[in-house]
């Protein structure tokens, strides 16, 4: 665990050593609020809740998270520092987890900085703060899922642009797995059980069920398994192809 913590700390510091951290947080806050007020009709709805705020998180994450994760491993490969890291007495999973947790913690920080809107909605009315809290957790879990997918895509290539595009596509497919856009590709040839299995993988379905205010064990479990699966795949990808 010591190695995980050391790598996490180094990664987190490296975000703030470059403009990346500040640009990311700024863009995230501006877009999250702009969507809420201009597209989500925060005022005109006349309801004291944060539904229009959380409604856009999946679509914001879809582009911002792969931008954050594209460098996780691709940059290590490109600069050659992966050779340094992987010849230190560090297990591959420790490095994978440390980098992932750093990215998650960072996203969590950006999310936490949206707190003024929570204060605002409490000032304007009396919202159900339990639902808002659950929605924040759901948003954090969704970000965690996207980050794990992005980490895996970054481990597959040394090119950050490729990692970004793969990340966006993979996140998009999993996001909409329960919708016709994805399911139609399976209908007609796949058995019904497979279609249902694919549909149950939909990130959006699980996210929406949490933002309705019901924090169910199966939704949390879904995100935990999704994250574990993609981090495991990242570890395997790094182990198999660290020198390529």
């Amino acid at each position, binding site marked *: 665990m*010591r*190695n995980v913590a*050391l*790598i996490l700390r*180094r990664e987190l*510091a*490296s975000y703030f*050593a*470059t403009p990346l951290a500040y640009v990311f947080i700024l863009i995230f806050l501006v877009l999250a609020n702009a969507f809420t007020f201009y597209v989500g009709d925060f005022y005109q709805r006349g309801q004291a809740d944060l539904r229009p705020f959380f409604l856009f998180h999946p679509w914001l994450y879809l582009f911002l998270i792969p931008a954050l994760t594209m460098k996780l491993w691709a940059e290590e490969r490109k*600069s*050659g*520092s992966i*050779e*340094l890291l*992987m*010849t*230190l*007495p*560090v*297990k591959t999973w420790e490095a994978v987890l440390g980098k992932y947790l750093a990215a998650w913690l960072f996203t969590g920080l950006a999310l936490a900085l949206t707190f003024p809107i929570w204060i605002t909605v409490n000032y304007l009315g009396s919202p159900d703060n339990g639902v808002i809290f659950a929605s924040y957790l759901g948003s954090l879990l969704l970000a965690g899922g996207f980050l794990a997918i992005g980490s895996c895509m970054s481990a597959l290539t040394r090119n950050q642009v490729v990692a970004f595009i793969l990340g966006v596509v993979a996140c998009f497919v999993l996001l909409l797995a329960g919708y016709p856009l994805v399911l139609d590709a399976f209908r007609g040839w796949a058995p019904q059980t497979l279609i249902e299995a694919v549909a149950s993988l939909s990130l959006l379905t699980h996210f929406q069920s949490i933002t309705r205010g019901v924090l169910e064990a199966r939704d949390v479990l879904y995100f935990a398994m999704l994250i574990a699966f993609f981090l495991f795949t990242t570890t395997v990808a790094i182990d198999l192809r*660290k*020198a390529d």
Partner: protein
Amino acid sequence: MIKTEHLCKRYPSVTAVEDVTFEVRPGEVLGFLGPNGAGKTTTMRMLAGFVTPTSGRASICGHDVEREPLAARQCLGYLPEGAPSYGEMRVAAFLEFIAELRRLDGARKRARLDYVTERLQLSSVLDRPIETLSKGFRRRVGLAQAIIHDPPVLILDEPTDGLDPNQKHEVRTLIDEMAREKIIVISTHILEEVDAVCTRAIIIARGRIVADDTPLQLTSRSRYHNAVSLQLARSDQLEAARAAVAGLAAVASVEVSEREARLTALPRSGAMILQEVAALAASQGLQLKELHLESGRLDEVFRTITA
């Protein structure tokens, strides 16, 4: 001890390393020589556990690099080719990060950080991001992270690449000092470095070991070994001198450089011709600027073996 047995690395399109077997003992400084692309870096990467061998085995201090990777890596200080590091990090933070991953703590960590900073003259750049440093400094930061935990085994891929002559000298002195109690493997294509720091040299060509000997023995394989070189004061004597030297029974052939007015007499195998050539020069009345015995030319051996 470093031990490799029949180490091979094959890629779909090319065999990088083929059947490499050797052992290195404490006190030895092994120089890895070879043309670019010969397999030096791949061999070192397999020792460091970064590249998985297709077949064969390697161990560091008795720890197999594949079965006990962490134990093997803990015994090892490794400078990868090109001295990669995290460019955005400051030197001090970077070295501290490596030291902590190497399980150094408290006073011991402080002492080792101070030691490497002093030894590699990094104190003036501790607060600078690594990406803003010159090539020489980056290489020294790479060396510093390799030796920070005082490992019994050091593998350094081109440790002096990009350093100026003074810095090269410093690094060689450092290697010399550490050589007494450590096992050191360096790769280089600077042949003078082999003479300067190595007790043993392995030459690799097309993935195979083609020579494994002391630098002295390697040089003696040169056809210039025990050759006599003489430089004349007057270039008009060159032709007469060449004919006279070539006439000596023990001389196999004579090479002439007209620009320098220099003759190099190569002996028949095993013959010592210095006395004879000197006597001949005196009796022929040749005016000499210089007369010396050559020990051999490593670059010539290198070219002959790896061609």
